[in-house]
Structures are given as structure tokens and as C-alpha cells.
């Protein structure tokens, strides 16, 4: 707790009509930390991410950035505060080229003119992709033509290379093969070593969580139910936790 807290969520609640996605979520994220967030499908992980990124407005609770209470008015507002997101759906536009997607809503223009600087965007896109180690045949191709892993790499690169202070990654490895997945994990490790960015990483693969995360939180039924340093827990313990919850629910269902 002596460390610098970049993000703190207190008692966040969010519902959609009759569906309650988040009941009462409190979490904290320290500078340079990688926080793993796990939970069942429908536990509210994506809703939580979208609340922190300004996409959803929470019904209750508050967000503190660097200790200051902040109401995020929009995604672009959150972006201006240094919050960048890799969404589960990747937020790529199929009909646009790789480099247009890489700089979506962060386009480089030829100041003082409002015209896009295609060359600068292409150059940087090439550099970013090379940095990660992902090969894409041509950055002029539309992203519709690319494989799931390549698309995901673009979404990750876009968020990582945008001077983020807080990086939210919603299953950044979902569509990736082993090799591409390792690339992204290496990238996260590198960011962690540099220590400038704090990351919340949603993952289904607990091995990944233990590979790069400092701490792990479990989100169940719209609440954070578990918060431990990865050093103090294990894959077995987490698996047991998740499975026992399922068994309990099943047993409970049978009794009723």
C-alpha cells in the first residue's frame, strides 16, 4: 500500500435493465503492476473493463485515478487520461487497412493541415509490429484479410504503443497460437520491466496469469471475491476455487 496507486475502483455497480453485471466491485492497481483478472463467463469482467475505459458509466461507486476521483465522460476522455484498452472484440474496422486501424482515433495529421500523414502512420505501424515480432504481409491490406492472431496483435500493438499509463487487456491471447501468444506475453513482461505502465489482464489460461501477473483478482457474480499476490497462490488453488464454486452452485441447484 506504500506504492503509488494509479487506479482504484470503489463499490462499482452496473446493470443493464434487469441484468446486474457488476454488484459491488472494488479493486486497486499500483504503478507498474500487472493485475490478472479471472472469472467465469458472464462474471462481469468485460463490463468492468468497459467501465474503467469510459465506455459504460457506472450506476454506483467511484473511480479514482492517481488518488483523484474521476468521472469518465467518454472513451476519448479516458484515453486522454492515459487509459488504453484491448477489447475482447478487438474494435478493429474490417474495411480499413492495418495502419488505419493501428492509428484509429489517434491518426497522425500533417500539422498545421488536417490531412492524414499516411507515410508516418505506415512507418510507425511497421516499427510497432516488428517490435512485437508479428509478421503481417502488407500493412496496406484490410484487416478483414488477416488471421485472428494477426488481428489481435494489431489491437494489442495499438493499445501498447499509445503512451498508455493504464492498459486494460481483455483476453488479448484468445485467438492466438502458442507462438503469437508467447510474443504478447513477452511484450507484457517487457512493459512490466520498464515499469511505466500498469496493466489489468483478463485471461482464461491461468498459466498465462502466473507467467506475467503480480497479483490476481477473481470476479464472481459481480464482486471481487479473491485478491492474492501470484506468489502466494498457485494454478491449482485458483482452479480449485473456480471449480468448487461451480460444483457448489450445481449441488445447490440440485437441492432446490
Amino acid at each position, binding site marked *: 500500500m506504500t506504492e503509488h496507486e494509479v487506479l482504484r475502483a470503489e463499490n462499482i455497480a452496473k446493470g443493464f435493465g434487469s441484468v446486474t453485471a457488476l454488484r459491488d466491485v472494488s479493486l486497486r492497481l499500483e504503478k507498474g503492476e500487472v493485475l490478472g483478472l479471472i472469472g467465469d463467463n458472464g462474471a462481469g469482467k468485460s463490463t468492468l473493463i*468497459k467501465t474503467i*475505459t*469510459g*465506455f459504460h458509466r457506472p450506476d454506483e461507486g467511484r473511480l479514482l485515478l492517481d488518488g483523484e476521483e474521476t468521472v469518465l465522460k*467518454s*472513451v*476519448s476522455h*479516458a*484515453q486522454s487520461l492515459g487509459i488504453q*484498452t484491448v*477489447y475482447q*472484440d*478487438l*474494435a*478493429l*474496422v*474490417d*474495411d*480499413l487497412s492495418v495502419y*488505419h486501424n493501428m492509428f*484509429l*482515433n489517434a*491518426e497522425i*495529421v500533417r500539422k498545421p493541415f*488536417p*490531412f*492524414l500523414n499516411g507515410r508516418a502512420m505506415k512507418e510507425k505501424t511497421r516499427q510497432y509490429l516488428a517490435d512485437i515480432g508479428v509478421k503481417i504481409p502488407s500493412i496496406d491490406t484490410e484487416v*478483414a*484479410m*488477416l488471421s485472428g492472431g494477426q488481428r489481435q496483435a494489431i489491437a494489442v500493438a495499438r493499445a501498447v504503443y499509445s503512451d498508455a499509463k493504464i492498459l486494460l487487456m481483455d483476453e488479448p491471447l484468445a485467438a492466438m497460437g502458442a507462438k503469437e501468444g508467447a510474443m504478447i506475453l513477452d511484450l507484457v513482461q517487457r512493459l512490466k520491466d520498464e515499469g511505466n505502465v500498469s496493466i489489468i489482464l483478463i485471461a482464461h489460461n491461468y498459466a498465462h496469469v502466473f507467467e506475467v501477473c503480480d497479483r490476481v483478482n477473481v470476479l464472481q457474480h459481480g464482486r471481487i471475491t479473491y485478491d492474492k499476490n501470484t506468489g502466494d497462490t498457485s494454478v491449482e488453488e485458483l482452479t480449485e476455487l473456480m471449480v468448487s464454486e461451480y460444483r457448489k452452485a450445481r449441488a445447490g441447484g440440485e437441492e432446490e
Partner: protein
Amino acid sequence: MAQTPPKNESQVETQKQSFGSRMVGTLLRRQEASIFVVAIILLVYFQASNAAFLSQGNLRNLGQFIAATAIIAVGLVMVMVLGEIDLSVGQTFAFAPIVMWIAYEQLLLVLPLAVIVGLLATAAIGLVNGTIRVYFGVPSFVVTLGMFFLLSGVNVTLVGGFPKTAPEASAIKSALGAYPYSGIIWCVVIVAFMHILLNHTRWGIHTFATGGNFTGARESGIKVDKIRVWNFALCSTLAGFAGILEAMRIDSIDPLAGGANTMFLAISAAVIGGTPLAGGVGTILGAFIGTLVLSVLQNGFTLQGVSAFTFNIILGVAVLVVMVLSVYIGRIRKGRKVT
């Protein structure tokens, strides 16, 4: 070792194939390119069959015909890239000169100011269309259909049912359509401006993004509501400007100008040029060339004495063929959803 040569051969073959398919792919993808070829063929054909086709007089006619439709069509492209439609453009086309006429004749404003008032009124129409679409969630087809009827009534009411004469001759009137070539000059300038806007500015990229992946665009922080509302305004304003040019040219403020025919012609031009209604895809130059093709067809047939009904048949077939092709192309392109 013995297996090496055939392997090489097959490699060469796949290379050849990929080169060939790339060529085909480029042709298929650049829909402007294929429609441009059609335009050239038509020009050659009509010139060959009637020497008067490329005479100065006929080119002037052609230019006047193209100008108004193309200006409306490029405005529509902005809305169609969003996956929306504006059916009220034909009525907005007549509305602008009427408002201008009221500002000029009844409020006694100077002509430039009256023109601006007319354009602002049409921008307001677009803002209403866009606002109802975006903030009330009514499909744009329905919103602009309502606006279509509303404006056609308003237009006739405002001028008491009779056409009015346009403002008397002046340099400004000449510049705004009365000079025979001013329409086509405006058209070229507007097409160039809109092409740059759509392809080389953040606004354009955000328009593509909003039409191509609405949720993704929102997630990326693009102000999708602003993009949609103001593109409706832009579309209406351009239609209004086309209406003012046309009114100055024919020297009459006609409440029955434009209408459904103008609107459908402009939509057809945009579609044939390579802007399907599905959203996310569109081309300004294509809409211009699409207008060129339709205008050349209509003009060429008129010169040959072919009836307007034949033109409509050809227009209908062209729209259908183009749409079938574009869906088919979408299907053969990998990873693309076809709806």
C-alpha cells in the same frame, strides 16, 4: 531430389495464380475502376454513333445534368458509408432555393446572405434527420422518408404553389449556376473536396470506422454520434447547394423541382459507383463516375431518340447487376461478412 522440379513448377504456378488473382482482385476491389471503364466505353460508343455527342453544346448539357446529380450523390456517399440513407435529398434540393428566395425577396437580404440562409436551412434539415436517427433511434430510412413528405408539402406551401422567378442577373447569380459552366466547375471542386475529406482526413476515417464497425468505433473513442449527425447535415447541405445551382441555371424557383426522381438517380449513381448501402465502404470519385455513366446513358439515348422508358430499364438493370456483383465480391473476399 527427383521431387524438387515439380515442387518448383507448382511454386511458379501458384505465383502466377496469385499475380493473376491479385490483378483480378484489384479490378474487383476498385469498383470505381470498372465503372470508369464503362464510362469510357459509353463515351466512345455514343460518339461513334452520333457525332453531335461530343459537340460543345451537348457537352454543356451533359455538364449541367451531371453537376446537380453528382453533388447530391457525393453527399449521399457520406451517409451511405455510415450504413444510413437520406431519402429527403430530392426535397431538400427544392427547399434550399425556396428559403433563399424568401430571404431574398421577402426579407430583402442581399443575395450572398440569402444563399447562406438557404444553405443553413438545409443544414438544419440534415441535423434534424441525424438527431432523430441518432438520439431517438429511428432508422434513417423512416426518418428521411418522413422528411421527404414533410418537405414536399412545405416547399409547395412556402411559395403558394407556384414557381417563382430567380433573383435578377448578377455576378453572384452567374457564379452560382446561371453561367453555363459554373455548375460543373462547382461540381468538380466539391467532388475534389469531398474526396479529400473522406479519404485523407480524420473525419473521413472516422466515418468509415463508424459505418464499418459501430461498436468498435465507439470502443476506440470515436465520437460516433457527432460523426453521424454532421454527415447527415453535410449531405442535406450539398443537396441544397445543388438545388440552388439548378434554380439559378433554369432561372426558376420550382417547388416541384428535384423530388423522388432526383433522389433515386443520385442514390443509383452512388451505388453504381461503388458505395453499397451496407456501410463501411464508399467512394466519392465512384459516385461522380456513376453519375457520369447515368448522365451519358440518358443523354446519349436522348440524342439517338431512345425513349426514357428504355433508360429506366437500363438504370434498373445496372443497379441490380452492380449490387449482385458487390455482394458476390464480398463473398469471395476472405473473412468478410456478407449480409
